[in-house]
């Protein structure tokens, strides 16, 4: 694959959605959960860590941006940066403890954290608003020297803002995934025992992957809270972790653009199916079964297969023409 293919694909998604879609909010949501799924993919697809704790970092991002924008007079970009910091710190804590175990017990530890975080968020009403969540989160315009540069009032205006952040984050994560660090993560995913035996500190590598994942997910949570104007308890719920994981798996693990596909597929299907049938989650379950049984490399893997089939056909036709050419 050429070096910039994935970046061009991401740019194409960002540009095509406003043309094809009616709802700017839905389009923003696709990119926001694409970010969260990419964070999850860094752990699952690149490091081999199945984390049920992604909802924690998403929730932390939501609450941080809500608190910062409603209670403390911090500029909005700083609030987003702060959400990344809290997401990263939360991930450092969860990771620091969970990576002491492997396999099932690792998964159980992340699950335990997810449950605990939900109940803490539910109980600490002073900070989180409990069941009601934090309401009336403003969406301040981007200003410089008293001039409004970019108002975020309409859904499509906000989409533009999200798209810009998404593209920068996508580029940065792509860089991380291809860096020496990203390549070493693949070794950890393939064979932990050997990675340790040839000199790598597995805990440090996993912890760094967790922190990066948490920061991206925190950013996604913050953008989501700004989009819907509230930081609901649902963002801290276990269901959010599950949804992010499902998107990652459906899209395909080990490829960052696949996570955007997963997010788009999940949200668009949900949007379409929920209008048709209130029990649409049942159908989503079937999609997940199909992916798990027959296409473990997800939508991306399916796309790649189709692409190669097409290339193969072209190749064959070319071969035939040369053979015929030789005969004549």
């Amino acid at each position, binding site marked *: 694959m050429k070096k910039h293919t994935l970046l061009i694909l991401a740019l194409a998604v960002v540009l095509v959605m406003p043309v094809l879609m009616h709802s700017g909010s839905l389009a923003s949501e696709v990119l926001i959960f694409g970010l969260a799924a990419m964070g999850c993919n860094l752990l699952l697809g690149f490091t081999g860590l199945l984390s049920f704790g992604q909802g924690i970092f998403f929730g932390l991002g939501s609450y941080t941006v809500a608190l910062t924008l409603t209670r403390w007079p911090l500029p909005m970009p700083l609030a987003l940066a702060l959400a990344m910091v809290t997401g990263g710190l939360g991930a450092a804590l969860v990771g620091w403890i969970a990576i002491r175990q492997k396999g099932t017990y690792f998964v159980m530890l992340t699950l335990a954290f997810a449950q605990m975080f939900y109940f803490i968020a539910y109980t600490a009403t002073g900070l989180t608003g409990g069941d009601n969540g934090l309401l009336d989160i403003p969406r301040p315009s981007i200003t410089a020297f008293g001039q409004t540069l970019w108002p975020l009032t309409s859904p499509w205006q906000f989409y533009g803002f999200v798209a810009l952040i998404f593209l920068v984050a996508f580029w940065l994560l792509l*860089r991380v995934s291809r*860096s*020496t660090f990203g390549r070493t993560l693949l070794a950890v995913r393939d064979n932990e025992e050997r*990675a340790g035996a040839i000199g*790598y500190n597995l805990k440090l590598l996993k912890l760094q992957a967790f922190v990066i994942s948490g920061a991206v997910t925190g950013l996604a949570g913050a953008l989501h809270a700004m989009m819907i104007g509230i930081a609901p308890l649902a963002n801290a719920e276990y269901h959010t972790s599950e949804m992010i994981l499902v998107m990652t798996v459906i899209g395909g693990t080990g490829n960052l653009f696949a996570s955007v596909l997963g997010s788009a597929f999940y949200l668009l299907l949900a949007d379409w199916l929920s209008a048709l049938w209130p029990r649409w989650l049942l159908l989503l379950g079937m999609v997940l079964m199909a992916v798990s049984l027959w296409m473990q490399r997800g939508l991306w893997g399916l796309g790649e297969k189709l692409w190669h089939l097409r290339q193969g056909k072209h190749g064959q036709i070319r071969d035939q023409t040369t053979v015929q050419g030789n005969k004549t």
Partner: protein
Amino acid sequence: MSTPILLEAIGIEKYYGKFAALGGVDLKVRANTVHSVIGPNGAGKTTLFHMLTGTKSVSGGRIVFDGHDVTQEPDHRRVQRGIARSFQVTSLFLSLSVRENLRLAAQGTAPTKAMNCWHEPEGPRACADTVASVLAKLGLESFASTPAGNLSHGQQRRLEVGMALAARPKAIFLDEPTSGMGIDDLEDMKCFIKSLRDEHTVVLIEHNMNIVMDISDTVTVMQQGRVLAEGLPHDIRSDDRVRAAYLGNMITGGKA
């Protein structure tokens, strides 16, 4: 033999519950020698390897490597001291290319570089010289871009040893490098291990007595978690206790 002692293990013990897998093993390995550890199945050879390379921690005893007490250091720290190992059961990065396997192994001696999130492992970060020289030694140049999982068993065994070599270690620990190898590959592997002695110290677990007796400078015989005998290959072969332990039938290989 007069080369200095590179590795010294003193009274190594390993307990699993009450079971003593190792009941106080002493071992001295001299630099630039081939030191073989033999013994019947269950004698504790691989457990001793795990202790010496840090794959698992000791229950008692001390390990001194190159003048440093490494007893409490985990495996990845001991790699920085110059210890590298191969595994009895092939343990590779199967989805990654042969070249990438070796690059990762070479990079392992400077693991802080692995935390670099910004730069791709290219140019001076690619360890290209080390990788190329190991590829050549293994005779796997034409398979450099093949995923390790697609190699034949014999090739995988060679890469397994190459993973240890790529770290350019002082001491290289080989745990049954010939296991499951075809008869044609055995002689190659024997010459290969022998050639390692020029640049490395080799500690070898091997069941093939032909190889052990031909290339070892020192042989340590283990039985039930203890050292039964130690000496030059021909002394070991004629040792009555060793003959009794092996019932005389396993130790007949090699040149007389």
